[in-house]
């Protein structure tokens, strides 16, 4: 077994969290609260070191007084706690929202909309390798059919009858297959996290796995 007290601490806290699988108990509650408190404490210190010191303290020490403008605007967030002045909180919200939207929306439209629509188009490069899993002709046709049928399923301005019913029914199959694949990946992810913990307990703590 390991002689490192920190590994022992990590192992015992892991077992304390796992004890919840049997039933809720004070050991689990202690480990959970310890984790929450540590996270908050770590974030406070990290925020002070990575935001406050380089962007507030150091500029003020260097007599860069213009920094007072963004500091003052940021401080307006705290007017939330003064009911008569709480409307001033909208100023920093508007600035950050406007900046973020102006910067992000054009890039989002290009990256997540135009490029994805372009991706559904069948092009001549797909003929080079028909069975390519990402850019082959077969996959291209499936993506085109799947995209059109799935979108038609969410078209509610008309009753799903006739051709629309056929495409909507096909679309729902694509959606369900997609959900199934996503669920399968989620199971794999959760198993991976459990295996990671088991590897730590049985490799680093109890040296059973080599």
């Amino acid at each position, binding site marked *: 077994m390991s002689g490192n007290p920190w590994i022992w601490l990590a192992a015992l806290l892991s077992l304390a969290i796992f004890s919840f699988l049997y039933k809720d108990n004070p050991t689990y509650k202690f480990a959970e609260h310890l984790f929450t408190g540590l996270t908050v404490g770590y974030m406070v210190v990290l925020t002070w070191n990575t935001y406050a010191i380089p962007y507030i303290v150091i500029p003020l020490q260097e007599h860069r007084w213009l920094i007072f403008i963004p500091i003052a605007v940021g401080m307006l967030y705290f007017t939330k706690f003064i009911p008569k002045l709480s409307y001033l909180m909208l100023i920093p919200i508007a600035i950050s929202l406007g900046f973020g939207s102006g910067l992000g929306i054009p890039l989002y439209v290009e990256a997540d909309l135009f490029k994805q629509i372009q991706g559904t188009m069948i092009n001549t490069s797909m003929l080079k390798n028909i069975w*390519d899993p990402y850019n082959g002709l077969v996959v291209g046709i499936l993506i085109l059919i799947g995209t059109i049928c799935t979108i038609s399923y969410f078209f509610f301005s008309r009753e799903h009858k006739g051709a629309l019913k056929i495409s909507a029914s096909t679309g729902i199959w694509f959606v369900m297959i997609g959900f199934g694949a996503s669920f399968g990946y989620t199971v794999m992810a959760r198993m991976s996290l459990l295996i*990671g913990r088991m590897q730590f307990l049985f490799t680093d703590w109890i040296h059973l796995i080599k």
Partner: protein
Amino acid sequence: MMKFLSKLNRMDRRIVFLLVTVVILIPLLLNIQSRLYVDKATHDLFNRIDAIQPGGQPILISFDYDPQVAPELDPMAVAVLRHCFAKGIKVIGMGLQPQGDAIGEAIISRISKEYNKKSGTDYCYFGYRPGGYIVMLYIGENVKKALPQDYYGVSYDSLPMMKGIHNYDDIPLVLSLAGSTWPNTWIMFAGTRYKASIADGCTAVMAPEYYPFLQTGQLVGQMAGMKGAAEYEQLIVDAGYTKSKDIASKAMSAISYSHILIILLIVMGNIGYFVTRRMENK
């Protein structure tokens, strides 16, 4: 028999937990390993990194994840760093997630010691950089502005490796290791605006979300979950960069057997459900 079948979908969950634990532990303790089928996306990422000139331009690895997803992403970071250091490719490390700060430093300093690599000349680790997409935009304009000093307090100008690195034009690949939507942000701000080559190592939960970006070429490669890490470990062993597989490869048998157990439990649960419904209808 019917009564037994009807009880299948009411099995105590603690029995399921015990079965999962046993099924995972047995292959780990017996060290059962098997060869993997390597996905095209992992192959593409490996080939992209392998094509980078040793001693030339560095790749940027962004440790954008928290400790809770470390079992999936740590093996990816280790495998890619081993590939880079074995081939002599320089590495810039940073992170956009606060808790990834110490994770990245621990991994990069551990693996660099295995290959006798020095901070400042073979790799630079800049730690957590606050600001998210602002950092990505800064790197596109002026890397020095985004990363003024490294994790150890050495200023940018004193790092020999960073001479000649101005923006994404000097970084052939950005690899985001993330348990959330950071790769999406990298694609938007670095890939779309500055035409940077972006690849990602993501958790298995997030992998389906990035397949459309692989299909359009916005992502040049991907490692998906612990399996992606195991695939990369296999590739670097096959290419001769390391001699043995690591932690992710050893876990693959455990994952396979646990999946078989889950499939059996789902089938049993469905049998129990339909039998119960039939009994109630009678």
